[in-house]
């Protein structure tokens, strides 16, 4: 079976189904499916940019107002716009992961995927890769617009920006895996989780204010979340022009734990869906 079956022209030439190359082929096939989907609808493409753009404008004008009435220091640092753009990396990546997964359920295609040679980890890899591609489509134009409208250059964060990006995207995948698992088990009735789970982090991971603002008992919880270290790091760079790389290592270590928990949760819910027979009856 592992050798290609080549006969007449009409006969399918089947490539070996296992190994790294076979996995890559299936991931690429699934990413193609998502590209086709995005290309099929101009509205989806506009929507990808619309919300981050609106948010950037709102916070940008607020920052401008604050700078005029209170401290010019804030405007110079671009703390609010920086926070908005970094938060959107986390939020949009999470939404990209979850809604792409939900799309398979809306289209009742999950059964077809699950009986194909596609492994669950390949599905996760395709969703993760696609969330980054979507993020690029949505965030690059908005980051450029932030420069033209408010003179904020996201690249001014320097090399740590790449590390911030990694930490935020990895966290978004952990959240995406957990919400995909829950939706897989409980159906589209749990769809709201895809949208709301990231917001649970918003007040705790100190997007717009330092950790010191939180009550003492909540600070350890905040520091146990990888994005908190990103937002603290961003403020440190923009306000004090210093950056402690140990914070990032700590955040990446936490991410490894959360990703393992996320994948274990997804796998567990997938096995429960197989036991409960919900893979063929996905709906509300």
């Amino acid at each position, binding site marked *: 079976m592992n050798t290609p079956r080549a006969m007449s022209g009409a006969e399918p030439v089947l490539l070996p189904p296992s190994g790294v190359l*076979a996995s890559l082929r*299936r991931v690429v096939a699934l990413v193609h499916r998502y590209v086709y989907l995005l290309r099929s609808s101009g509205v989806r493409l506009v929507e990808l940019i619309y919300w981050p753009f609106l948010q950037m404008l709102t916070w940008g004008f607020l920052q401008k107002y604050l700078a005029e009435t209170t401290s010019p220091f804030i405007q110079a640092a671009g703390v609010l716009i920086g926070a908005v753009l970094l938060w959107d990396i986390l939020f949009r990546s999470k939404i990209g992961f979850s809604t792409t997964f939900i799309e398979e359920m809306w289209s009742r295609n999950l059964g*077809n995927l699950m009986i*194909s040679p596609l492994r669950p980890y390949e599905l996760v890899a395709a969703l993760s890769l696609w969330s980054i591609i979507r993020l690029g489509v949505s965030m690059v134009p908005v980051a450029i617009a932030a420069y033209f409208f408010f003179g904020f250059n996201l690249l001014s964060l320097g090399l740590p920006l790449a590390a911030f990006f990694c930490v935020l995207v990895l966290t978004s995948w952990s959240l995406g895996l957990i919400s995909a698992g829950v939706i897989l088990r409980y159906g589209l009735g749990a769809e709201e989780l895809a949208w709301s789970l990231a917001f649970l982090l918003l007040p705790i991971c100190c997007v717009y204010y330092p950790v010191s603002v939180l009550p003492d008992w909540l600070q350890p919880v905040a520091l146990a979340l990888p994005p908190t270290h990103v937002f603290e790091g961003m403020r440190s760079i923009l306000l004090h022009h210093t950056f402690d790389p140990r914070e990032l290592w700590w955040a990446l270590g936490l991410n490894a734990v959360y990703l393992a928990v996320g994948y274990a949760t997804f796998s567990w819910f997938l096995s429960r869906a197989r036991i409960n027979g919900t893979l063929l009856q996905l709906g509300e």
Partner: protein
Amino acid sequence: MNDVSPNLQGENGAGRDLACVPVMVRGLTKRYGPVTAVDHISFTIEPGTTVALLGGNGAGKTTSIAMLLGLIMPSAGEVRVFGADMSRNRYGVAQRLNFQSPYVDLPARLTVRQNLKVYAGLYGIANAAERIAYIAEHLQIEALLDRATGKLSAGQKTRVGLAKALLNAPDLLLLDEPTASLDPDTADWIRHKLQDYAAERNATVLLASHNMAEVERLADRVILLQAGRIIEDETPKALVKNYGRDTLEDVFLDLVRGRAKPAPKPEHPPADAEPEQARRAS
């Protein structure tokens, strides 16, 4: 495939390579809490045969097929497809199977060609464009290739679903109500294509259906399910004969309505049998 037993023991004879047996089911059971959907069923399907799972609503047909595909985990029992234990190693044989069902769809926004290309990638088909062109011609969907799948009629969608199911030229094809909600002409056309495919490739087909005419036409063997149990496992002709009925539909109605199976009619009356009229007179 390290979980493949080398031999098939028991009713089909020892010494057979399990990898050659398309489907082997032993004591398969599925319980959902207090409800038993499939109750300890066992059967084997030989290569190149078409077997129909027949039964009323809730008889356990779809659940049985889903367990064969690895979509549902059995509560007890064993499913082996080409020797692979489907609970643990379904990826070893996934490339040799395919499936069509009204319970699953292809993404509606993608064109037919895009959908087929995606599945060609998932099944590892190197000559995807060539294969899609051949299947499209064979199933007469060439004109549909660049149309959005969601905008097709029910009959067109069924043909496209079948194209996806035949893309990898599966050795085992599982079909759940393949002609449900189709007009008689389209349904007949689909059956014809399925017959051709099975005959040309010596493929094994397992189909679940309510349609007796379809089963009589396609199936070499019928497994009748009722309340999750196998109540008959015979050829369509033998079933009709055993029940003394004219059609499989009559047999099905007898069974689901609980009418007793009539005693088989002897071919020739015994020599000492009393003529009916004489017996009545006495």
